[in-house]
């Protein structure tokens, strides 16, 4: 075998290995998606949306209270996380400067916060909210999710605002606009689709979180919108149902998983679409 043959052969082997690795990885992932859709749709019907959680074996059993609880938790976390994250990101990009000391530190810390184990955040919120209050509550769940959300929104806002050309800012200031007006009317507008994308992705990210809710918002078998009481969520319900011995609960757990996955994937695809549209315009 000549040197040339050997080189070509090595190349072929590596190429094949890389194909196999991709195939194994992608096959496993599609297996999971297949299971999710197959199992999710078997138990999914109108009952899922109009009845509350019920003891196993009951026909009038659904996920209405968990769906509503999940929406309240995610919406509540977004109401705190989005304004705080966007304004903090604005500070980094517009006031802190690319190399400002505080801005740099906040950027690094948010990167770390983004990867902090979510269960640790759950324990933290338990200690500062649940223990003093004496009981689980929707508020605690909202706070836990908001803590996870802020660094994500902050970092994308920072990145997106920095993409807005400096000349636009200078033009606004030259016309005599005060800085806050320049930011709101020129910078935010220029970065609009990027900001929306970042917010959507962060909502999708926290919507799938279970660990921080296990001992903050806990769960509730009844329909409740009272944030001072424990509140049901899709994710914690999935956890409770999947670990139960009852067939019908397990099936319903898969339905909850499917609803959640469709929401998360939908938000991700929408976000991608928005970014692409933006790129196309340019």
């Amino acid at each position: 075998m000549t040197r040339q043959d050997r080189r070509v052969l090595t190349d072929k082997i590596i190429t094949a290995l890389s194909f196999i690795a991709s195939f194994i990885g992608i096959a496993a992932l599609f297996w999971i998606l297949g299971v999710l859709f197959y199992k999710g749709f078997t138990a999914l019907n109108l009952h899922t949306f109009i009845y509350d959680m019920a003891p196993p074996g009951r026909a009038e059993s659904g996920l209405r209270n968990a769906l509503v609880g999940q929406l309240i938790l995610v919406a509540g976390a977004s109401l705190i996380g989005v304004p705080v994250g966007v304004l903090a990101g604005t500070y980094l990009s517009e006031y802190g400067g690319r190399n400002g000391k505080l801005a740099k530190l906040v950027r690094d810390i948010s990167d770390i916060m983004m990867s902090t184990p979510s269960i640790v955040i759950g324990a933290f919120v338990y200690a500062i909210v649940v223990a003093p209050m004496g009981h689980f509550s929707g508020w605690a769940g909202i706070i836990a999710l908001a803590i996870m959300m802020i660094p994500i929104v902050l970092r994308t806002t920072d990145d997106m605002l920095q993409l807005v050309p400096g000349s636009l800012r200078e033009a606004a200031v030259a016309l005599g606009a005060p800085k806050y007006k320049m930011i709101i009317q020129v910078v935010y507008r220029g970065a609009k689709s990027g900001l929306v994308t970042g917010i959507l992705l962060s909502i999708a990210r926290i919507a799938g979180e279970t660990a921080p809710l296990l001992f903050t918002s806990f769960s509730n078998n009844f329909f409740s919108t009272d944030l001072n009481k424990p509140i049901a969520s899709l994710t914690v319900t999935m956890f409770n149902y999947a670990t139960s011995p009852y067939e019908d609960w397990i099936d319903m757990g898969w339905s909850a998983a499917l609803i959640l996955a469709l929401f998360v994937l939908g938000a991700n695809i929408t976000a991608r679409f928005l970014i692409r549209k933006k790129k196309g315009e340019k």
Partner: protein
Amino acid sequence: MDKFLDSLFLNTSRIFAITVLVVLVALFIVLFKEAKPAIDAFGLQFLTNTRWAPNMDIFGGYPAIYGSIVSTAIAMLIATPIAIGIAIFLSELASPLVAAIVGMAVELLAAIPSIIYGMWGLFYLAPILKDIWGGSGLGLATAGVVLSIMIIPFMAAITRDAMKTTPDILKESAYGMGATRWEVLKDVVIPYVKSGIIGSIILALGRAIGETMAVTFVMGNAHKVPHSLFEAATSIPVTLANEFTEADTDLYYSSLFYLALILLVISFTVIAIAKFLFLKRVQEKKI
């Protein structure tokens, strides 16, 4: 009026930016404060004590720490070659159309909530592994496999992004001199993006070690150091998820916070190493 609004806007945004720092510092302080009784009672021996007996108020963190480290190590061993294979496929081998489609699929899979991976592991993977390995099908090996599947998309996506930072002109020069694809990869791309790849792997490790929901279902939840990888075990996040609401004594509660603090310190260190030692260059290039 404008002056007032201007300073209001500046100060609100600055306070919110500082909030992030406050939360992180508070996280450490609160966990330490809650863990204090257990730290006083067990000291550093907590890290090596294998006994976890809540009924006798004896708590040792070793089984959980061991479980976390071993399951993460298994996950990394499986996920790293596959994820790098996918990254090579996406950045060097696939046609642009295939790369776009598969790349998008990988990114979407990275977004799927981890609890779904856990449910799949419990109902589909564990029975199969039970037939192959025997035992209950639950344990560190199963947890490692589920974790690896969960982090593959994430690791593949960021490794691919790192590989893409290689300037085309470098690759073209190598091809122009008659190098094969593997030679370009080995001698041009990988040396160029080495720190990015290592950073991506460590970042995925940080994610795996703190993951709760993907492994809670398949760990088996037994508080001991297992004799084999196929026996029921536990890990730090799994212990927290299962026992937090059951902690009935102060020492029990505080021992759980001790575990949470250990997890926070481990993940903080791992992520800081990935970010500051390895990923700095990749990020600077992106901007």
